[in-house]
């Protein structure tokens, strides 16, 4: 149980960090298109700002998604067969995709996360769910060759 919990927490934190960095790039790209100068330093400070202010909210969304999606993935893997890892990756991706649609429908604003206004942005952000699903399974049920890998 502890192993599952640790895998879950690490998956959520890792997914939230990657998702935060990705959405920052979409927001900055939109500004660059408007000829706003974005230097390397500005990009880094924006990433740090978003890691502090955006990633906790995204982590919350991701945690709720994974709490629902991962058990379904585990069940599917057991009942339908196939590679467990791909079930978890798919669950994270499609779970987050559904979450964006539902949140945008429920929230007062048309789109909660600006980066998901475009299909490319929504897809890229949903990939962070896939990444979180991969991390979870990688830690929960590592393959023999993964167990053999050195820690550092």
């Amino acid at each position, binding site marked *: 149980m502890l192993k599952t919990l640790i895998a879950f927490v690490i998956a959520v934190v890792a997914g939230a960090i990657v998702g*935060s960095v990705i*959405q*920052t790039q979409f*927001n900055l790209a*939109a*500004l660059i*298109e*408007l000829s*706003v100068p*974005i230097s390397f330093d*500005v990009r880094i*400070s*924006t990433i740090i*700002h*978003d890691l*502090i*202010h*955006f990633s*906790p*909210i*995204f982590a919350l969304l991701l945690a709720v998604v994974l709490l629902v999606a991962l058990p379904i993935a585990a069940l599917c893997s057991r009942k339908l067969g196939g590679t467990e890892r791909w079930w978890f990756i798919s669950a994270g991706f499609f779970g987050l995709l559904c979450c964006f649609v539902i949140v945008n429908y429920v929230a*007062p*604003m*048309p*789109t*909660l*996360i*600006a*980066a998901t*206004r475009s299909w490319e942005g929504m897809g890229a952000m949903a990939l962070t769910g896939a990444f979180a699903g991969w991390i979870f399974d990688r830690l929960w049920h590592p393959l023999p060759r993964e167990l053999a890998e050195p820690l550092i």
Partner: protein
Amino acid sequence: MKKLIFSLMLGALFHSAWASNEVKVEVVAEGLSFPWSLQQLPAEQGGWLVTERGGRLLHIADDGSVNAIPLQLPELFVTGQSGLFEVTLAPDFETSRELLLSYACGSLSANTTCLARASLSANAPYETTEVKQIFAAQPLRKGAAHYGGRMTWLPDGTLLLTLGDGFDYREQAQNLNNHLGKVVRLQRDGSVAADNPFPDKAAGYIFSYGHRNSQGIVYDPARDVIWQHEHGPKGGDEINRLQAGKNYGWPIASYGIDYTGAMVTPYQDLPGVIQPMYQWTPSLAPSDMALYKGDLFAQWQGDLLVSHLAGKRVQRLRLNEGTWQVEQTIEVDNKARIRAVEVARDGAVWLATDAAEGKILRLSPTGSESRR
């Protein structure tokens, strides 16, 4: 600049006073569904016109009785933030009986801010005739957020109309080829004003750009200035001195961040962007603005009254050495969200609360005569 604004805000905090016993609040009418704007009719004892976001135009008589005025707006679209917004009287209303109404038109997948003209009958029970859509902001957009919709007349008889960025289209506020996130200037028949700053862009209507969602605009005749305010995202609500052809920054420069905590822009100031004269962080969601001129509150002449939704208050701001400072804060009706503020000819201040059971309130000095 940040330090200056911070110190001004700090100063404002210490100088503000919550609704003191100098202001008396009377309920004029209640049970209105999300009232959006207030407009006093010019005739003595003529009462007020009030819009409800759901699309009803109401007349409130001086005795507080409320009567609906039949109105069929072309393509009215009501959902979320959309619906009927403001009603204003043509400068020659007493002879022309002409009203202008801003509203959302279209459907959920293709809508925009529209302007219609209508004629109001001379006597009660009032009727509207010759209702015609005279302007539709371009392009149509999806969703139901950020329409702007406030209006003010300029001395030359042209009309300024605020337009929102449509929320999902924030970058378009910087694009001069459309009307998203702009203030437009029109003739009263909806045609473009002759000397707008960008005659070759977006049919020539644009007066200023880089706005997010502006719901307050007044012309100040004593100072010959246009004051405008707009909603920031999370923080960064602004009061601007509006000038033709200027860029007010959204979304490339802002004091606010996104609702999720993400940065909209790393810049609060950029070359070519006009800085706000006042900004609210955290946001109070300014919903309307009126310039005080009247006899009842003799000390308030030339002050701005700003109503707030999330902030659930009215603030009175005074221009002091070129900057606005909050002089007084007034809460009404158990901290109601306030949608509209208007100054009556007698100097009383009228408010509309933003609720399914909205109220029309009248503020006057304690000890002054009541309305009825």
